[in-house]
């Protein structure tokens, strides 16, 4: 049977082949990993749906493949051992082992021979990949098969920079799986014998967790974080929200504090654009964005996702609320596409639904800042000689000290508090009857 790339559980439908764990001629068991695929978010193992022998592998390390792409052809086979008569089986199995070995080495040679034929570039006229003689000479000198290199010029012509980026890709692909030194669990980690203290359970540290972990570790170690704590009095805001709640419910959506925060954040970002910027160390430039794409942290069984509300400044609160509900559902159903997680310029993480007060979120690189919201709490406030119940929202803005200094951090937090406290009623209006 032909094994095709399934819809990836990580929500993406394409990725780059990172490692191929099997060879043509190998026997494979059901659920044994054929290859690992990497997309923006995660590294996903692709398991074999059947038991059998691998007849052909249709992809190469570094290939970009999409859902439905043919990965391998597996011949399902019975168990010859079961058929062999007892008594002669030891001799037979020995013989078979040698045969297998020989066959495997033969197949390997065959695979090497057919490599060009199976590779990316194929011309119906039988011509080699289009490339100038100097590029072909370079490829020959470094022993590179040009049919594997995607050409960027007209008609797929390969130029020197295509070779450079191909090699760079190969290198990064080759270094990633071996890059355990960079992962959270380092190679030098001390061996703990947890079992000596009582019964334990072990579960694999999944590829997604590994990827998220790496990103977090990198952001946490490279970005000098500063945390600015504050509280916003959202009493008035909550009253207005209560007032409009029914309309939103009618529209099959929840008017969450996260959706409101998106609007509030944009108000503050407009006053302090540096919080919507990114640091480009390649060019030594600060990139200010004249768009407002806000990432929303979504918790799911599979892990943490950060879908993005695009051009949130141009959307109504109702639209934003609807979109968040939709994206969160998609995240939980593992149907988010990598496209839906790209391009965020500022992120919001709201843990208020779960509980807790202030916390210090880690900035999502290459953003400049992130907003963390805790659970709002009610406190008495002495107002005009009367004790009244007021609702306070604990917020924390984590920002990149390479871009932003403390004073601006405090100013931004203040602006944010103000935009929560003076949240304009007009944002709630949907133009519909209550």
């Amino acid at each position, binding site marked *: 049977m032909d094994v095709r790339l399934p819809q990836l559980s990580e929500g993406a439908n394409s990725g780059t082949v990172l490692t191929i764990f099997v060879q043509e001629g190998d026997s494979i068991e059901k659920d044994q990993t054929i290859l690992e695929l990497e997309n923006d978010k995660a590294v996903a193992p692709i398991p074999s749906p059947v038991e059998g022998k691998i007849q052909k592998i249709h992809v190469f390390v570094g290939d970009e493949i999409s859902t439905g792409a043919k990965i391998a052809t597996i011949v399902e086979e019975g168990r010859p051992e079961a058929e062999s008569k007892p008594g002669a089986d030891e001799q037979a199995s020995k013989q078979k082992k040698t045969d297998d070995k020989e066959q495997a080495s033969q197949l390997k040679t065959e695979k090497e021979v057919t490599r060009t034929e199976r590779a990316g570039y194929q*011309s*119906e*006229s*039988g*011509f*080699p*990949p*289009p*490339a*100038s*003689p100097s590029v*072909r*000479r370079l490829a*020959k*000198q470094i022993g590179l098969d040009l049919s594997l290199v995607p*050409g960027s010029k*007209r*008609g*797929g*012509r*390969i130029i020197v920079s295509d070779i450079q980026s191909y090699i760079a890709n190969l290198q990064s692909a080759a270094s990633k799986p071996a890059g355990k030194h960079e992962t959270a669990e380092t190679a030098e980690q001390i061996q703990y014998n947890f079992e000596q203290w009582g019964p334990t359970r072990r579960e694999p540290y999944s590829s997604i967790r590994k990827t998220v972990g790496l990103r977090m570790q990198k952001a946490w170690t490279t970005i000098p974080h500063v945390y600015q704590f504050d509280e916003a009095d959202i009493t008035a805001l909550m009253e207005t929200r209560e007032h409009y709640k029914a309309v939103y419910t009618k529209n099959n959506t929840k008017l969450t504090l996260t959706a409101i925060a998106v609007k509030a954040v944009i108000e503050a970002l407009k006053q302090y654009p540096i919080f919507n910027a990114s640091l480009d160390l390649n060019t030594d430039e600060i990139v200010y964005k004249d768009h407002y794409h806000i990432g929303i942290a979504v918790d799911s069984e599979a892990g943490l996702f950060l879908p993005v509300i695009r051009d949130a400044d141009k959307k109504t609160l109702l639209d934003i609320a609807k979109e968040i509900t939709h994206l969160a559902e998609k995240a939980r159903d593992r149907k988010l596409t990598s496209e839906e997680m790209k391009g965020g310029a500022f992120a919001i993480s709201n843990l208020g639904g779960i509980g807790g007060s202030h916390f210090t979120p880690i900035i999502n690189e290459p953003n400049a800042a992130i907003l963390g919201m805790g659970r709002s709490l009610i406190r008495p406030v002495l107002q005009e000689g009367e004790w009244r119940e007021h609702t306070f929202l604990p917020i924390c803005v984590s920002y990149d000290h390479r871009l932003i200094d403390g004073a601006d951090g405090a100013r931004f937090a203040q602006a944010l508090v103000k935009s929560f406290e003076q949240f304009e009623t007009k944002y709630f209006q949907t133009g519909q009857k209550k």
Partner: protein
Amino acid sequence: MKTINTDLVVLGAGPGGFAAAIQASSLGKNVVLVDQNPRLGGVCLNWGCIPSKSYLHAANLIEEVKSCQHRGIIFSDPKIDIDKMRAWKESILDKLSTGMVNQAKQKNVKRLIGRGYFEDSNTLRVETNDGQILVKYQNAIIAVGSIPFLPSTFDLGNSRIMTSDKALELEDIPNTLLVVGGGYIGMELGAVYAALGSKVVMVEYNDRILHGSDRDMVRFVQKRAENTFQEIRVKTKVSKMETQRNKIKVTFQDHADQETQETYDRVLISVGRKPNCHNLGLENTAVTLDGNGFIEANHVKQTKDPSIYAIGDIIGGAMLAHKASRDARIAVDTICDQHVTIDPVAIPAVVFTDPELAWCGMTEMEAKEKGIKVDIATFPWSASGRAMSFDRPDGMTKLIIEPGTGRIIGVGVAGSGAGELISEGALAIEMGATASDIADVVHPHPTLSESIMECAERYVRNLEK
């Protein structure tokens, strides 16, 4: 017996062997170059490309002068001094050969004039005028080329039955000349004799002349040759030739097995060339020959004998000087452990008829034979101002294009000066250019090179429709 020790011995000093010797020497090898002809250059310089092109230039000049009346230029009939013409040709060959001798000297290539014979895998015995010399070598390159094929039934020991070598000596201008074989050699030399005044009849066994080339391009050559030659007789073979006093009596057999007999003053046999490996002592080495007598060599031109390489006509394939030179680079690269010479995608071929035919890469016919789907874009020279300006609208330019990618995979040109135009085609193919690339390049007006751009533009425009 004198013995010379060397890194590399090259046997044959034609366009393959000479290039190999110079390149290997540049890369630091001790090189001995062996050729039995005191004049370097092999077939190309002595009995091929260069003398035939000299005569063809003279022939075209005669034809040109004849057809000037309508331009208001009237010449009297030209007088031909055949001895002077032959001497002029010789002077060209001498100049070129002297240049090669000097180059060999500069590069410290040691020359031996004499016949080479392999004693074993690492020894070549050379029979020079000053006695025999043993050359002990690390590597040898065999570049002994090819010779005209003369079927034994035609070999009557009569010098009036000529091959191209003899025809280029231009002993006399026969009244009547029969050319057997309508390939490029017969077409070129037939044209020379026709221009000098011979009545030329061409006989071809196939159903058309130059049958390896695309039919639509050959028609221009065919049409003109029908005027300059007395007759072109296709689907006919020569079954017998006999000496009859000062003439040759030829028996023809047409496709209906009808026999006719005619007599000619001279006959030129141009039915192909064969490898020149007779009496080289190859049996003393591990070198092997294929069924047609060509030396078997792998992709780096190494023979079955690991120390011996073979290049050019002797290994078959396209029997062209420039292909031999490329073979030389590949072989020398391998011997010198360089591995930098790429495999060419397109080897251009030129037929120096009038008009000329040139092509490179895939031809339309080849695509059809192999069942490869291609797009064709053509441009007739009757639409070219430049071609009209010198009365030669009889030509066309053709691009063979890979559908989908638009990549140029073949170029064909028929017309005056086609041989000079084809290099743009070869460049386009080797660079992996598309039709759009060519259409985007500014070509000067008024030139014939515009026809290549015009083809490309026509193709691109059609796609846009």
